[in-house]
């Protein structure tokens, strides 16, 4: 087990290091941030001064070494685009993205599980087909489109919900639904498949034969046993939600990490992009690592 742990932790650390290094060098191939920061009328001297201030006059390897050393010391640098320390900016955005991710996950689970159950119980009936069509539509809708349509219907026409921004629970509804639609479809389909598989098993038939009512059957047996594969996909869903947040946060002006990522890439704010990538790869790799470790505990055969 210890050998396995050491192997997996080393693999995870190497993956994060690789991703961050790749992004560090790729960013520097995509254009000069100084050109964006300065007005068009800036002279060569102005550009030179700004490059010195930002440390971009140093050789790339030297910048890379400084970045690694500073990151190791948990000094994440300074954003010259936003004029604030990177750690302050990122910390201020994390709670907003967490709120959105939790809202989306809650929506997708609260709607996905019951929909999956209903689809399983009504399989081969018309209701199930309609619900499956709805679920497929949720999976196929581009997030930016569903977001804009919701804004138009619930924000502009009906004026039930705020069109953008943050502040109250009502602000969270549309972004959560928009972001959660894709996961809803995944949960609904996974639940349907898992429940159908369970329904096929002997213990269910025995329980039914003993006259156990459906509600009790679901509560006591079906849900618990069907949840295993569903919970295991949640790690992947969290990564998907973080990726989807980039679009949703832009459409709904939600001040989270997704919007920050998009704006920072556009502005070539190297310092912020690097740390967001580090954070994103850390979350994704950690989720997968935890998932692998849990699997190895459940099924020791997968250990090397």
């Amino acid at each position, binding site marked *: 087990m210890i050998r396995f742990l050491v192997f997996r932790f080393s693999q995870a650390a190497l993956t994060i290091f690789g991703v961050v290094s790749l992004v560090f060098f790729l960013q520097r191939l995509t254009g000069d941030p100084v050109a964006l920061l300065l007005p068009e009328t800036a002279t060569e001297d102005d550009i030179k001064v700004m490059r010195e*201030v930002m440390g971009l006059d140093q050789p790339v390897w030297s910048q890379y070494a400084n970045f690694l050393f500073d990151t190791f010391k948990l000094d994440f640098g300074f954003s010259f685009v936003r004029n*604030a320390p990177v750690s302050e900016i990122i910390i201020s955005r994390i709670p907003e993205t967490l709120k959105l991710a939790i809202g989306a996950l809650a929506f997708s689970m609260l709607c996905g599980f019951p929909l999956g159950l209903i689809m399983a119980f009504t*399989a081969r009936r018309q209701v199930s087909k309609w619900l499956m069509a709805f679920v497929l539509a949720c999976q196929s809708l581009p997030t930016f489109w569903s977001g804009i349509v919701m804004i138009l219907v619930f924000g502009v026409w009906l004026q039930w919900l705020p069109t953008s921004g943050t502040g109250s629970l009502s602000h969270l509804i549309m972004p959560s639904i928009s972001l959660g639609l894709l996961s809803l479809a995944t949960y609904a389909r996974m639940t349907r498949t898992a429940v159908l598989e369970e*329904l*096929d098993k002997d213990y269910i038939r025995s329980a039914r034969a003993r006259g156990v009512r459906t509600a009790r059957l679901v509560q006591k047996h079906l849900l618990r046993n069907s949840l295993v594969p569903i919970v295991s996909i949640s790690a992947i869903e969290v990564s998907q939600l973080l990726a989807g947040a980039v679009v949703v946060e832009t459409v*709904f002006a939600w001040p989270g990490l997704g919007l920050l990522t998009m704006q920072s890439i556009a502005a070539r704010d190297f310092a912020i992009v690097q740390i967001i990538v580090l954070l994103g790869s850390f979350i994704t790799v950690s989720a997968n690592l935890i998932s692998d470790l849990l699997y190895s505990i459940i099924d020791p055969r997968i250990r090397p």
Partner: protein
Amino acid sequence: MTKEVLVKMPFSEGRAFLALFLKGLAALFLACVCLSAFAVTEENIVIDLSGEPASLDPHVQWNPSSYYVYRNIFDNLFTRDNGGKIVGQVAETWEQTTDTTLKLTIREGIFFHDGEPLKPSDVVFSIKRIIDPEFGSPQLGQFNKIVDAVAEENIVVISTADPYPSLLAQLVKLSIVPEHIISKVGDSKFNDAPIGSGPYAFLEWDRGNMVKLIRNEDYWGDVGPFLRATFRSVPDVATRVADLRAGTADLVVSIDADFAQQINSGGTGKILSALSERVGYLGLNLEKPPFNNLEMRRAASMAIDRQGLIEGLLQAGEVPISQMLTPSHFGFDAAVPPFEFDVARARAIVSTNQALASSPATLATSPVFDQRIVQAIQQMLNDVGFNIAISMSDMPRYLEIVTSPSSRNSELSFGRWSCACQDADGVVYPLLHSSSSWSRVKNTHLDDLLEAARSSLDPEVRQEAYNQVHQIVREEYLMLPLYQATVLYGAAVDLNFVPTANESMFLNRMRIIR
């Protein structure tokens, strides 16, 4: 097996689950809806910007999302009135005492929001701060002609390295910051909670989301009509327009003609527009075929239907131009004749040297520009026999291409230029002087004219030099000016706001219509 089990599951139970699920969903939705409130009062104006202010320190970042906010917190040395005329703000009177010195009398009775008076030493501190290379202001290039500033009683004397005729136009952008605060708290904390002397005081900055200001009741000038102002960051234009239509925003920026039509047809807002000092143009690489040939440049100009681009695509009241300036710039020459649109003649010119015209050429552009215009221009040029391909790259890469030497530069580039100074020096010097990385032109006579106009304080001498510049550019088709761009805002119907060519947004110049 599954079928057997399913048969045992009564359909009514599945339906009951569905009903329960829908009821639960409706209850959750209604509970949340009840918590929302829509109260746009005249006590608070909500303005949707396309981005978050990068900085509230006026000496740091200089982009619209930042200066829309901080220009309301700070007073500048000078400002432009709604007609575009330079008028004193912190500077009450001014006099050019020598070719290189400007004497300013500082207005008395201006107070910072902490109650301290604005002193001439604050003006000197502000100037020295922004020209200090170690401070690293992105605005340094606009003020680096200033070499010194000295305060004596209520007088400040500014010295420049050389005669600098556009000094006043640049000083319009210089905000006065409090020395006593910055010396005490430092640059970073000052940016977090700025203190100025403007018509609105800083209240709160919810990073990434919004900035709130509150009216300065003791302002020396016109007091603002709103008690509070909220500037929100809403990056998506469709969302900004939705905010306006839903009544959750009173003023939205950066919209195009398509969204303007939506706002007009919705009846919940109105469109405010003004011709800006921005110029849409085509840059030509004069050292690469086909545009190293004057006749080819002439043919390209004749092939472009400027009026058609405006009426068919832009549709926001833009105006065709034949020089790189607009009437709002000093140095504009109303006598420059318009470019002719004549497809038949363009084809005829191209047919005389088809081999040259059909040499492959790229048109560099970036997603921030209106791609409909770029594609239409490509089509118009190819229709007469050119062989133009569009090369799209994001802004940093685009800037790298268009400021690289001619050998690495594209044959054509689409651009929109604004110096935010309304002076020819900020436009034609960087675009045409051989020393500038933006320029593709190597013409010593043109360089002499640009330098003469830059170093003379006599407006007539400058105007004459610029007239000749425009004539040379027009006759030799060194660049192809296309149109004077329009700035569009969406506003609540009861908001009175006059957009200006320099795209300023002063809250205390707005009014509520009752």
